[in-house]
């Protein structure tokens, strides 16, 4: 039997994602990739992987796996009950796995998307240079055909026994509990077709995430904003673009968006904030704040610097009990 993690139960919607598929918008292929890139990157970093390595994006939860290999895994993102062989384990840290171990995820308590990375990454045949699963395009993933994980799938990975357990420092972990997000916006595209009043309304109002929100885009509900345009010649849509159809309700276009579209757009949400948006549940609160492209650029560089400078904590042993003992000794 080849080695990997066997899917016993796929959960609600679990997908193989790497950093995304780039350079193929010209033939209509979208980018795909993780909806919460920060959580995805932390999971890979905990496993000592390149930040773009293929991992599992688990929406809502319910995934159960069995290891047929000795390796290391880490789960980040949404707060979800997580156990190995029915022993509760911590998120945001790496865990050793032995052949036969059963990894079980419950359902998200806050946030909605979790990431499970494995040491060395999952070995998935790339299509158009990426393993990213895009259901709508029937591309990517384990079978290269865009299907979500199914029971019986064996997700191949190499033998990679853990040398040490690592943990993401507390101050680096996002908090999804309040189900709200402030999204920074770079104005652009048809911005001038939106009146000053409409723009003021947009930046001073609270919007709610609707049920019609998925990997293509998040549809919001709130005060309507209008542009002077009914439609435009279809044009390229970048990640995070804020599209406003005739009903005035904004749609934030995300990883699996169509590459071109004919609705007016107000600008685009800063990518650093899209992870927060992607973690919101229906009813979640969204507010917007305008920033300049220079501020956006600085924020990107700063965020990368902060991520690179953050040091993972090394746990001395694999067991929580031992840790407590050590602390006890110090105290005594």
């Amino acid at each position, binding site marked *: 039997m080849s080695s990997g993690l066997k899917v016993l139960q796929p959960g609600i919607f679990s997908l193989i994602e790497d950093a995304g598929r780039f350079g193929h918008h010209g*033939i*209509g292929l979208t980018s795909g990739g993780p909806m919460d890139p920060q959580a995805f990157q932390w999971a890979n970093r905990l496993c000592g992987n390149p930040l773009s390595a293929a991992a599992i994006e688990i929406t809502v939860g319910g995934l159960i796996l069995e290891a047929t290999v000795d390796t290391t895994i880490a789960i980040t993102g949404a707060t979800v009950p997580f156990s190995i062989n029915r022993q509760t384990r911590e998120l945001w840290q790496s865990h050793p796995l032995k052949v036969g171990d059963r990894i079980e995820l419950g359902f998200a308590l806050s946030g909605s998307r979790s990431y499970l990375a494995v040491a060395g990454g999952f070995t998935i045949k790339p299509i158009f240079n990426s393993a990213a699963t895009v259901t*709508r395009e029937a591309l990517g993933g384990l079978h290269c055909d865009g299907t979500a994980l199914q029971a019986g799938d064996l997700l191949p990975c190499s033998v990679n026994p853990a040398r040490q357990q690592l943990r993401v420092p507390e101050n680096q972990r996002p908090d999804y509990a309040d189900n709200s997000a402030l999204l920074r916006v770079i104005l652009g595209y048809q911005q001038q077709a939106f009146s000053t009043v409409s723009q003021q309304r947009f930046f001073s109002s609270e919007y709610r995430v609707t049920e019609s929100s998925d990997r293509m885009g998040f549809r919001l509900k709130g005060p309507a904003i209008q542009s002077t345009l009914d439609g435009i*010649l279809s*044009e*390229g849509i*970048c990640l995070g673009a804020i599209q406003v159809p005739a009903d005035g309700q904004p749609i934030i276009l995300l990883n699996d968006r*169509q590459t071109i579209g004919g609705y007016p757009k107000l600008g685009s949400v800063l990518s650093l904030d899209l992870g927060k948006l992607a973690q919101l549940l229906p009813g979640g609160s969204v507010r917007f704040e305008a920033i300049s492209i220079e501020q956006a*650029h600085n924020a*990107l560089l700063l965020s990368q610097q902060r991520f690179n400078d953050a040091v993972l904590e090394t746990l001395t042993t694999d067991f929580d009990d031992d840790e407590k003992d050590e602390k006890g000794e110090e105290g005594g």
Partner: protein
Amino acid sequence: MAPQRTISIAGENALIVYFGDTPSEAIAAEIAATASQLRIILDDTLVDLVPSYASLLVIYDPFKTDHHAVRKAIRKALNTPIDPDSNQSASLVTLPVYYSIESGPDLQSLADNAGLTIEDVITIHQQSEYRVYAIGFAPGFAYLGELDPRIAAPRLATPRQKVPRGAVAIADRQTAVYPAESPGGWNLIGLCPQLMFDPSLEPSMPVQVGDRVRFKAIDRETYLDMGGLL
């Protein structure tokens, strides 16, 4: 005198170049030329390009460059004269089509509404040389324009749940070949046996934005011989 071209911000790492308000032959050629220039100038700072009817979205790597440098590169590309010999994207692709009531369920109604015979519609569809104005909606879906106004037709009031792969279709003044089975609201007039999108091939599409396309009628037997399905 070239039409006014403007560069706007699209997002944190994307600029969009507008070439005019209406698509045309000249704009399609200019977009294709600008895109190939930018691939060279921007090199590894380029992430992706999205050419469309009258615009070009330029997505760059913000960790390697910034919007000032990319604007400069775009201006340079726009000011580079189009060299017809080096413009690889100007290739002419001929797509075979089996036009019939059997393969084109909307052929009759389209002809009736246009006050033409089915034969007229088939002839007119083959007479024009089209430009690939944009690719999108689905992988490999190429929007071809401009269709002769005599056979232009609005989208169906109720889209079909299933349009077969290879369906040759008309909507407004555009025509297209469905690259895969999908829902769709365009008027179906025939079937093309050539795959418009095959991930296992390099290139995976027979056309790219800016290319010229002609349609050529084939009979039922030829269609089936070429691997077409009915």
